[in-house]
């Protein structure tokens, strides 16, 4: 175990078979095995969890908040991408 700052790990938990793993937080741990244990202890205390993933936080590439407008604004004007944009004829009934 190196005498260095403890690395950070992102934790993903799957609560039921069939559902995807979801990001639920992060833990500090010196290695992957200890990160799994910490994730188990911190994030599965109340749940019916069936699986845990841990990923070094350093392995995640994140978008720049400064790019927010360029990346996400253009979709705001494309309301036809939402299903609610379309009127459903009465004859169709419930979809």
């Amino acid at each position, binding site marked *: *175990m190196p005498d260095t700052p403890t690395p950070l790990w992102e934790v993903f938990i799957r609560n039921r078979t069939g559902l995807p793993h979801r990001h639920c937080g992060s833990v500090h741990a010196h*290695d992957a095995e*200890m990160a799994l*244990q*910490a994730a188990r*202890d*911190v994030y599965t*205390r109340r749940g019916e969890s069936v699986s845990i993933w841990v990923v070094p936080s350093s392995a995640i590439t994140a978008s720049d908040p400064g790019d927010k407008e360029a990346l996400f604004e253009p979709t705001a004007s494309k309301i036809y991408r939402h299903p609610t944009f379309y009127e459903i004829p009465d004859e169709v009934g419930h979809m």
Partner: protein
Amino acid sequence: MGQDTDAIFATCLALGDDALVLGHRLSQWSSTAPTLEEDIALSNLGLDMIGQARLFYQLGATIEGKGRDEDKLAYFRDASAFRNLLLMELPNGDFAVTMARHLAVAAFLEPYYRALAASPHQGLAEIAAKAVREMTYHVRHAGEWIIRLGDGTQESRRRMIAGLDAIWPYTGELFAMDEAERSLAAAGIVPDRATIRPQWNETIARVLAEATLDMPEPAAQRAGGRQGHHTEHLAPMLADMQSLARAHPEATW
């Protein structure tokens, strides 16, 4: 009560006291553990032990049939009436001492509960079957820390060796049996503690080998907890643990 019933009540009390005292020691790490993650982990381990204690006390109280309940057994007996092993009541020391003690206990309880789960006594078998799954994780948690501390920095290694040395004189009592327990073991109702020793040795040896640590030197062994002869550490711990229940008897949430 018959002879067997007496002995089964004594077993419930002994196993319950072991679990409660160790559980309370673990709870004393709350808010002072080395990291937030480990703080929660130690609380989880403690809650597992306290949950086991409750089940043993509930079963014991029913068998005794004198109107005592789990709270009476936990909060209204003094140190001399507690039957836990000395190992459980030792102060936490530093994190390495706590992990050394916890591995020693978990490496025993995991195979012990596994054997007890096959007991013809349904009440004991049911508690053991639930508890064995918890202990499997406890072995892993304490073991992984000992491996990293032993095979870590110079300082962590020094402390891990000191931690193992500190608890070693108290590990022999894990395998001691009094006459009542021996009679239950002979009847196949509880495991013979001696039969757990090979697996205990194996678990400890595996973890220490991976931690690049030697087995501690054989040490003069201390015992007496089962007879109520405790170290000076138990009474102050109980005074703290029992103060609220004694100040407000019969209080409910």
